[in-house]
């Protein structure tokens, strides 16, 4: 049963600390997305990659957020330094071409 995996599932940290979230997309999928979900904003696209190349990161605060794909099996989203307003659930999703996108279980981030 192929699925997107994310680690950690929960993260509590203090303001100013670095946070790294990891995602393993479904094997064979060539597009990877990072979404953020909050009660106020709903689901927001932060960045996405195709064949490991970043295509759009316009939804991401550039000064503190960075997204990378070191290889086809790993995507990372890093926040440095973290702020309380970054508290949210961060979802990774993967897809193949324009086929349906499948979401991971999310990382719930709390920044104190």
């Amino acid at each position: 049963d192929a699925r997107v995996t994310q680690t950690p599932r929960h993260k509590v940290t203090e303001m100013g600390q670095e946070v790294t979230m990891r995602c393993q997309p479904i094997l064979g999928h060539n597009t990877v997305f990072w979404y953020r979900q909050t009660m106020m904003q709903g689901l927001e696209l932060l960045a996405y990659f195709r064949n490991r190349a970043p295509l759009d990161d316009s939804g991401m605060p550039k000064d503190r957020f960075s997204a990378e794909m070191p290889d086809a099996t790993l995507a990372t989203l890093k926040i440095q330094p973290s702020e309380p307003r970054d508290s949210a659930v961060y979802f990774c999703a993967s897809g193949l071409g324009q086929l349906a996108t499948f979401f991971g279980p999310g990382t719930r981030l709390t920044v104190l």
Partner: protein
Amino acid sequence: GESVGLHLPTLSVQEGDNSIINCAYSNSASDYFIWYKQESGKGPQFIIDIRSNMDKRQGQRVTVLLNKTVKHLSLQIAATQPGDSAVYFCAETLNTDKLIFGTGTRLQVFP
């Protein structure tokens, strides 16, 4: 834990009834649409999709209708069950893989 909008529209139905969830999409040029279901504490789960060259598509207990004239999408769930209780999102895209999500509708199923 809940992670969706505070003021989501809510649809309450009785178990066994049919449900219709509506969505108004934003871009008349969008050519591909997906309905997702999100249960509490989980990521969105794909339910059904439809391309703009179709106006209806059926799955198991679900049907999606597309009206491009008024930019309207609906999800029909037949014989709604308690396990269908969740937040439902529509998403649209145009020629890319970049999905734009709607705000969501909460479905509550009562016994």
